[in-house]
Each structure stands twice: as structure tokens, then as C-alpha cells.
């Protein structure tokens, strides 16, 4: 149980680090990396949540008490990983485009140029 709590604290810390990077970094690439860190933290929290409730998998022999992970959060989180990855790759491509137009990746400078 101690290990579980410790892991949860570490992962929540990871999410917080990602959040801080997303809010405080001005460079767009750094923002995107921070967003990915945050996303990874949330995904790992899902995996951790699967650990907590032990249920026998679908094919197991029910007479033997098996300790195993809950398959549902792991099954659904795969989709979230794929979505996170696709958004990340799309963003990187268009940030490349942006750097060609605005010659900077600093969000404040881009917004200043944009607003004019």
C-alpha cells in the first residue's frame, strides 16, 4: 500500500510538472513537450488505478483465487495514448510551419505579430 501511495504521489507530481511547463514556458516546443509529460502522467495514473482492484481475467479458472489487474482501464487507456500521440505529431508539424511564417516559436512574440 505504501508503494501505491508513493507511486501515486510521484505521478501526480509528474502531472503538476507538466502543467507548470505548459503554463510557464514561452517556447511552443517546450509547451508541447510539457503537455506530453502531463498526458503521460495521467495515462500512468490510469495504469495505477487498474492495479488497485484485483479481478480475475476473463479466461481464468475461477476456482483458483488469482490476483490480477483490472483490464478495463488498461483497455481504454490505449486509445488515449494513440490520441495523445496523434495530436502531438500534428502539433509538431504545424509548429514547424509556424516557425517558417513567424520566424520565432515564442508564443508572446507570435501573438504580438498576430494581433497587429
Amino acid at each position, binding site marked *: 500500500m505504501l508503494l501505491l501511495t508513493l507511486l501515486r504521489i510521484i505521478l501526480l507530481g509528474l*502531472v503538476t510538472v507538466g*502543467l507548470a511547463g*505548459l*503554463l510557464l514556458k*514561452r517556447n*511552443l516546443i517546450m*509547451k*508541447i513537450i510539457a*503537455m506530453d509529460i*502531463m*498526458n503521460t502522467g*495521467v495515462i500512468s*495514473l*490510469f495504469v495505477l*488505478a487498474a492495479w*488497485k*482492484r484485483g479481478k480475475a481475467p476473463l479466461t481464468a479458472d475461477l476456482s483458483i483465487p488469482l490476483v490480477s489487474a483490472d483490464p*478495463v*482501464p488498461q483497455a*481504454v487507456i490505449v*486509445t*488515449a495514448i494513440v*490520441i*495523445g500521440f*496523434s*495530436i502531438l505529431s*500534428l*502539433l509538431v508539424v*504545424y*509548429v514547424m*510551419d*509556424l516557425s517558417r*511564417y*513567424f520566424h520565432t516559436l515564442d*508564443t*508572446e512574440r*507570435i*501573438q504580438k505579430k*498576430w*494581433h497587429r
Partner: protein
Amino acid sequence: MNIPVVLIFLFVFLPLSGGGLLFAFPERGRKLLPFLFLVNSIISGYMIFTGFEDVLLFSGSFGVEIVFDPSGLILTLMNGIVFLSVSLSMADRSFPPLTMALISILHGTANAVFISNDLFNIFVCVDLAGILGFLLIRMGRKPRQVWSAVKYLVTANFGMILYLLGCLQVYTHTGSFSINSIGNVPPVAVALLLTGLSVKGGILAMGLWIPEAYGEADAEVSALLSGVITKVGLAPMFRIASVSPLAHGFLSFIGPVAAIWGVLYAMAEKDLKKMLAYSTLSQVGFAISVPALGPFYAASHGIAKAWLFLSAGNMPGRSIEYLQKKGVELSSWLPMVFGALVIAGIPGSALYIAKGLAMSYLEDWRLILLYLASLGTAVYYSKLMLIPPLKKGKLIKGSGLSHLILFVALLAGGARAGSYGIFQVWSSLFLIFSGFSLYLLLRKRSFPVLPYWPEEIDHIMGLTVLFCLLIWGVFAL
């Protein structure tokens, strides 16, 4: 014949797989696509008419729950109508070849959000809709569009990460992702879910990506964004609010505030498309004030706003002052003025009914705020009514059919017996008239301009976090 399965095939499977085929055969499928949208809107209209309700659970326990009920079907009806008219008005213009495929997939995705009752399924579909919206916004490949699109995707994805955390909370406490089980989850879960969705739905500061994105995108895309993608964020909120009293209280508290806040932004705006975007922010507030009636309001607003954006695409310019000086052709003047009157709530239209119903459910300070917001709506839409029509030009041009469809849909929504009491009709006419005269009085002075800084990307995300903490704090008390 299993009706729900057929419906899912038509609403979700066919548009998604058709979109895949359209990537391969862009030219041939283009002509067929409007028929699919037509069939979907007719079927959803018929299903609402017959009062069809059913629940389908895909693949047993832990499966995805699909619900067909009036509140979901009215949004699929709106979805069909908006896509039908947009695809018709795109028919006589040239667009990049992949546009039609994206639009078809977006239609299926939005339908999937409107009918699903499962938190995680909603997450996947809302995120997919976000990606498609991103690709559509940057379609014109102008640098300004690329920046608004990137800003949209970053903020929307950030919102969805918060939503995912909320999903996790719900799962650990109930062992299921079904919305029905959300009644007594801890407040933090509801706070996270609602904040995540309100970035997509455009509520208060979380929706401030909207003005730039709508303002920069092509007119047809803006119509889709405002008509459908905003509603993709709102529809799950209505479902959550119907089960969780916390969410219900939150939405009905924040709704009138959002309505008046959007009005303040819209009054000062001088750019036509951005004004329409701010108006969306305000109308979303109206829609969530009474969550039970939200789907009907959101659907009527989606159709009306799509109409306004489509007619804004035919204008010679975007600055309202310029348009007021030069005037516009009759073929774009008529839809613009009708659309403006509809959103201001003229009797006989769908939004008149929706507004009347919403206000009849409220009584305290919220009613006063909503009245003020309606007055403000009439004030800023008066800007459009002062644009003079030009005598020359044909009455109906190329995309006349799409305008006709939207017009008929709005009229049909307004046909509801019992909402035309003397007092209601007169009060709404009085509101529009006094808004118009107020605008004439105040026209020479400049309206106070609200600050720009909340629209910057960091501030949107920061305010979202603050907002989430605030809701959590209030809920926990």
C-alpha cells in the same frame, strides 16, 4: 429489424467509412454526401416526432452505452441540417480535395458524441472532433489560420487531459464509465469533467480560443465550428447535468454570467466574423442556463449561427463600418438580417421558443441577467440591421438552397403551440425594439472595449486551471 443498430449504422458508421472512401474518390463521393446528410436529418426529425427512445449496450458489461432520446436526437437533427446546408454551399466553390472527407468524418464523430452515454467514448469522439476541427481551421493555409488552429488544439487538448483525469476519478469510485453512475462521485471528478468540456463548449474564459479561430477560418468552416463543434462540447455537459445535481447547479449558475459576459465582448467588436464568434460565447451561456432545455437551445442556435456565418462568407468585407457604408447585395442581405433577428429572438423562430422556455424556468437574479443579455443581443445585432441592401444583384444566388433549408428549419422549430401568449410576443418584440433604439442612441459613442489579454494562449489555460480549482472549492464546501 433492430432500429438502434440501423441508426448507428447511418449516423456514425456510414459517415466515418464514407469519409475514408472519400479520401480515395474525392470527386465521385462529393455529390453523394449531401444525400447522406439529408437522410440523417430526416430520420432524426422523424424519430423525434414519434418520440422514439431506446438504449443500446455494445458488447455486454463494461460496454459502450448508446442512448437515443429526444435530447440527443435533436442535436443529430441539427447536425444533419447544418452539414447539409454547408455541403450544398460548398458545392459551387473549390476547396482542397480532402475537405469533403474531413467533413464526412466530422459528421459521424459529432453524431457519436450526441448519442453516447459513456464518459470514455465521449472523450475519444470529442478529441477526434477536435483534431478534425484543427485540420479544417487551417485549411486555407494562411499563417494566421495556422496560429489560431495551433492555439485551438493546444487549449482543447489541455482541456481533454483534465477531462481524462475526471474520468479516472469516476472510474475509481464507481467502477464504470457510464454517465448514469456519476450521481454521487466526489466533487473533484465533476469539476474536472465540466472544466474539460467547457474548453470545447466555449464557456467563459475557457472558450476564448473561439474568436480567433472562428474569425480566421473560412466561412463554411466557421459555420461548422460554431454549429457543431461547440455543441460537441456542450452535449455531454447536458447529459452529466441530468444525472449530477452538482453539475446542474454549476451550469445554471454560470450560464447567465456567461451570457452577459459574451454580450459585453460582442458589443465592442467591429469585425463581423469576430462579433458572431463572441455572440456564440454569449448564446452558449443561454443554452446552459437551464440544462434540461439546453439541447433544444443549442440546436436552434447552431442552425441560426451557421446561417449567419454562411451569409458572412458572401460579404464584400469584414469590417462592420465598411459594410454599413457600402451596403451588401440583396442575396446576402436577406439571410443576414433574418439570422440576426432570429438570434435576437423574434417571435415565430426556434430561438424565440427556446428563450421563452428557458426564461419561464428561471426566476431570481438569473432571469434579470438573461433579460439584460437578450437586450444586449438585440443591441449588437442592430449593427447588422443598419447595413443597407443594394438594389442590384439577383435575389437568389448559387447557394440559395442551403439558405432555404436553414430558414425552413428555424421556422419549423418555432412552430410550437402555447408559446404565443400576448405577453410573451410583446415582451420579445419590445426587447428587440428597445435594443435597436438603444443602439441608435449609443452608436456615436464607443462601447467599452474589454481587455485582450485573456485571449492569449497562456491565459486561457491558466484561467482554466483557476476555474477548475474554484469549482472544486465551491463544490467541496
